[in-house]
């Protein structure tokens, strides 16, 4: 049974990822599992806002779209689906999957993994990792979610669920759980868990390992980027794997794409910490073994941390961003003048302004590109303040540049939104109780 590699596809690497490549993986990938990773740091806090407005909401906003395209091929091919698209409401997300399945006439069994929501259990006086200040001093706390590991997911995999919906889970754990379940890895088998975690780390951002976030012509070329294929791993019982993509899709999988993704968002390569294990990425060897095929060797592991990381969302005020464009050989000078005028007009408000020229210094400040003289520039003024009314003055003053600013100002856009800040803390494992709740089955009727 374990002679054949386990085939796991990554159908999304963030909440906004494309759906057709995920469908292609299910249709042609002979997958055992499709994993969807849909949560960034503050996605759950934003979902919590929607759930407060409507208790049935708070799950991934693209859930319906993904399920309508994926459920039928998943069931037809016998592929199980696992994903964190439950966001702030895994139970609501699981129910929504059932509703979509019923509308499609597709019979599925769905389970939700609960327990990551620890808002009631955290101590607002505990210091935030980032700045040492008490959590509660940052602002009104709106969400606190523990990063769950494979121990929370394994009971769901042992059930008969076809679709498993969770909220906050460490991204690599979404991939490691099916491996540990399939191969029967023990919870103290640190080297295998670390090896599987490396594979999960390589897949968790979806197409970033198959040629996405990579093209830089003429130095780095990606064939047929428009039809970029998403990755799949063929995992062996010892935790090593081949990372590849479907034939005929765009993109590339080689030492360069794998190398970039191995180092992506890693803070300590010798100690990559997840709820399951501490993986030493400096021990991983990888080799090209065919076209778009890279074999990933074993990773050394150490025992898992005692506590779980918690991501805490808080109300951080409101952000206003306002822009206006200028063109011609004097564009930079007029853009600068417009920025100075806005700053002068807002001087009495106490607002801290970020003023930059897009096309000159908006990304890296007074860095490598700031000396250029582009034909057109876009003035950008942004600020964060405690109240919406206060910060909206930024948009009003940029808009007023039409008549009260330099010549030829064009194309004003203003955007104001609430800001949810995120800080981190930890929680003892014993304070986190997870639970698998089946919400199916329903017939196809």
């Amino acid at each position: 049974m374990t002679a054949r590699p386990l085939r796991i596809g990554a159908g999304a690497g963030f909440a906004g990822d494309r759906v057709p490549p995920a469908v292609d993986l299910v249709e042609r990938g002979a997958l055992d599992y499709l994993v969807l990773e849909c949560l960034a740091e503050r996605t759950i806090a934003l979902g919590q806002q929607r759930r407060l407005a409507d208790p049935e909401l708070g799950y991934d906003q693209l859930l319906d779209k993904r399920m309508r395209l994926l459920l039928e091929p998943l069931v037809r091919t016998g592929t199980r689906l696992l994903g964190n698209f439950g966001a702030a409401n895994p139970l609501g997300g699981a129910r929504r999957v059932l509703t979509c399945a019923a509308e499609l006439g597709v019979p599925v069994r769905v389970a939700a993994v609960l327990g990551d929501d620890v808002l009631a259990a955290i101590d607002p006086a505990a210091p935030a990792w980032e700045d040492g200040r008490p959590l509660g001093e940052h602002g009104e706390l709106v969400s606190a979610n523990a990063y769950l590991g494979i121990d929370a997911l394994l009971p769901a995999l042992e059930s008969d669920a076809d679709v498993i919906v969770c909220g906050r889970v460490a991204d690599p754990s979404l991939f490691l759980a099916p491996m540990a379940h399939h191969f029967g890895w023990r919870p103290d088998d640190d080297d295998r868990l670390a090896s599987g975690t490396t594979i999960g780390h390589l897949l968790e951002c979806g197409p970033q390992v198959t040629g996405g976030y990579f093209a830089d012509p003429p130095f780095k070329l990606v064939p047929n980027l428009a039809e970029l294929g998403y990755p799949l791993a063929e995992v062996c019982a010892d935790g090593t794997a081949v990372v590849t993509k479907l034939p005929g899709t765009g993109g590339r999988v080689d030492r360069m794409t794998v190398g970039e993704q191995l180092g992506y968002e890693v803070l300590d390569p010798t100690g990559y910490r997840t709820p399951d294990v501490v993986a030493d990425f400096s021990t991983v060897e990888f080799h090209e073994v065919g076209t778009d095929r890279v074999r990933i060797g074993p990773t050394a592991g150490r025992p898992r941390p005692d506590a779980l990381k918690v991501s805490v969302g808080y109300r951080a005020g409101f952000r206003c961003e306002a822009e206006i464009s200028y063109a011609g050989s004097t564009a930079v000078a007029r853009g600068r003048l417009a920025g100075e005028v806005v700053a002068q007009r807002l001087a009495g408000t106490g607002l801290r302004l970020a003023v930059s020229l897009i096309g000159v210094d908006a990304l890296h400040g007074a860095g490598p590109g700031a000396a250029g003289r582009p034909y057109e520039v876009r003035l950008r003024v942004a600020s964060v303040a405690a109240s919406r009314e206060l910060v909206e003055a930024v948009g009003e003053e940029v808009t007023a540049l039409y008549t009260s600013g330099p010549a030829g100002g064009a194309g004003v856009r203003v955007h104001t939104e609430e800001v949810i800040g995120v800080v981190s803390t930890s929680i003892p494992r014993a304070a986190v109780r997870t639970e698998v709740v089946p919400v199916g089955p329903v017939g196809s009727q």
Partner: protein
Amino acid sequence: MSRRLLELAHARAGDKGNLVTVVLIPYDPADYPLLCARVSTERVRRQLGGRAVGGVVRHEMANIPGLLFVCERAPGDTVTLSTGLDAHAKSVSSALLEMCV
């Protein structure tokens, strides 16, 4: 002869809270010692300008081979709170590759 990193190496930036990571990988593994010798933490901090105002830590990953830089951003310049255009700091890989070595 001085060359831009862009011609020698490729890079990818990532974000974690108030930190930005950049992994720098030579096209030719034979250039890895050159990168180790020339691309110091101090040079990276200067090259990234306003996007890395705090400490920069360099990790050598000989297995890629590549250099991994972990850089501290300014207080308030986090993914969620930043007033900058590139809140994630995803574009800093391009700034690093403009460095001459």
